[in-house]
């Protein structure tokens, strides 16, 4: 391909079509939105209407009270992520979107597990919790409730471990994520 501005003729064969590519991996989008009524509805409506499925969604305030942050996790195998971000950008209340690179990102999720536990299994479960750096936050005659924080895969691993004891309930927040180092999320 010739330098810009020269009369050198471009070969069309050298061009590669861009866009509409399925990356095949999980994407974490960090979306700054104006803190106004109806913004969540607009985003949820957009996803529903365009046929994009959200894996998880977490919303909360930021250091600036006029702005909220949404962390949206999507499957890049099922969706053309560039189309998702472009459509999101068209919403007037969406200020900024970052598709966070996994290697430059710290992501965390919290989960609460309520597990069946009689006297015998309680000790085993507590040991497991310790290994996962999880915390016991409630104990009853028949259950223990555990709080786990970490990446999604850690939480999923913990879930696998406690399931055999009898998983009564599980609640997950969805991932939140922040850029490593000085760079802005």
């Amino acid at each position, binding site marked *: 391909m*010739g330098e*810009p*501005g020269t*009369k*050198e*003729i*471009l*070969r*069309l064969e050298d*061009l*590669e*079509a*861009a*866009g*509409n590519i399925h990356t095949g991996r999980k994407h974490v989008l960090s979306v700054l*939105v*104006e803190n106004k*009524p*109806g913004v969540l*509805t*607009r985003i949820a*409506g957009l996803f529903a*209407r365009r046929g994009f499925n959200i894996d998880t969604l977490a919303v909360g305030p930021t250091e600036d009270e006029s702005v909220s942050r949404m962390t949206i996790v999507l499957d890049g195998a099922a969706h053309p992520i*560039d*189309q998702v971000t*472009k*459509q999101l*950008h*068209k*919403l*007037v*209340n*969406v*200020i*900024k979107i970052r598709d966070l690179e996994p290697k430059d990102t710290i992501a965390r999720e919290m989960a609460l597990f309520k597990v069946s536990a009689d006297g015998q299994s309680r000790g085993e479960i507590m040991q497991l919790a310790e290994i996962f750096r999880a915390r016991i936050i409630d104990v009853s005659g028949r259950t223990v409730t555990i709080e786990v924080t970490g990446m999604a895969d850690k939480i999923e691993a913990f879930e696998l471990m406690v399931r055999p004891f009898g998983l009564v309930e599980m609640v997950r927040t969805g991932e939140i994520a922040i850029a490593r180092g000085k760079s802005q999320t």
Partner: protein
Amino acid sequence: MRAVDAIMECLKAEGVESVFGIPGGANLPTYDALYDAGIRNILCRHEQGAGHAAEGYAKASGRVGVALATSGPGATNLVTAIADAMLDSVPTVFLTGQVRTDLMGTDGFQEADTVGITMPVVKHSFQVLDPREIPHMVHEAFYIARTGRPGPVLVDVPQDLSRADIKYDPSEAQKVDLPGYKNFVEGNAKQIRLAAKALANARRPIIYAGGGVINGNAAQELTDLVLTGGFPVTCTVMGLGGFPAPHDQWVGMLGMHGTRTANYAMDNADLIVAVGARFDDRITGKLSEFAPRAKFVHIDVDPAEISKNVPAHIPIVGDCKRILPKLMAEYRALEADRARMDDWWRQLREWQDQYPLKYESSKEGEIPPQRMIQAMYEVTGGDAIVTSDVGQHQMWCAQYYHFSKPRRWINSGGLGTMGFGLPSAIGAKVACPDDLVICLAGDGSLVMTCQELATAVEHDIPVKVFIMNNGYLGMVRQWQELFWDKRYSAVDMGKSPDWVKLAEAFGATGMRVEADDEVEGAMRDAIEADGPVVLDVRVRREENCYPMIPAGAAARDMVG
């Protein structure tokens, strides 16, 4: 002042002279303010009509169209027009009344969640919750509606808040504070250079222009590029008039009912330059077989359109009015040899000779529908503003009325809204009172919004309605004939209504023509008559619109 008086000041500051709408309980204050605000209200007979009239006004003039409606049913009646404006990117502002704030959420009388109902079909919307925000919101609504890719913006004002006493400071209210709203204008210089080179290298290029050229007021810039480069050019149904047809380099409309030459050109092109077009399914046919030999340059103001349906090799995001001249300058500097396209032009001419648009001429004096359009073209000198409904007549008009200027062809392309023609003609005539405005109606479509004849008569808006009357939902009948074994299910409209009597009942002039050799005369009479006229043109009933790409087929498999 009252918030509603501030709204009137906002409208005037935005240059609004006419609005279209209907009062009701929740927007009584708005209409009270309108009473002596110096803005003309066109009282439409149904909110859908008001919405389409606002669209017609916007499409004909390029200015923002405004429609007003009350809460609940008033607002829900607007929804079709709002969706229509969304799909065709029409700059419009819809001001709806809402029930009092103390009633909101209680299923109050005439309450509907207007912002919620319209959310999927607006460019943006504002729910007023604090009356002091109203002036700012109204100005931002206009700003969003007309900038970037234009579209509909809704402002929903609860009745009590609209009576609140607020201050209106024009300079303060007109400050735009939209941190998340950015538009691209200039286009990336490197990409433009790359596109120029691609054009210079292409042996079988074609320029494919859409409604963005009309919305972006870039018809002249498009024409300059096409003439400079000697490229063939085709337009979508929304882009007609973006290039002055008929012309040597014009290969006709493309898409489902486009010319074979245009569609075959897309199929065989090595480079397609899309300008303000969005590769709609009516253009591409079967996507996987669309333009298999082509590379794509895609110029659009909306980044989300780039690579949405067809991956672009050279995306250029920005305003085509700014980009096309730069592309032309870059291209000219390359001094490409036109002879490289000789074979291509030979091929295009061959297709044009082999596959002209054609139809069977009149037998026993009946009127072929295509000839009706040709008569219209002749009688108007090709210079009318033509609005249309949706169906066969729309496609025939796109094929046979050669639009040579932008904003002369006003139709519902994206949503395909039957009943669009008459109210949009009213809006167009209000915007351009000195132009001849013809509504080319289908008999199936017109009956959906014919109440607006009352609007045209009462407000003395002399639109000329030419009905292509075949007594069928013609396009549906065509599909049933071709693809559903001629099982004509619910498409025969019979002889009702009697359009002449209906026109007269509304106080308009009604005329009818049934003989082929009387068409031109009848049209001239209709145009010369005072006031609104309905001309019922009885055409050959079972005519099919050809050529066509059957649904889901590729361009090379056109039939007819």
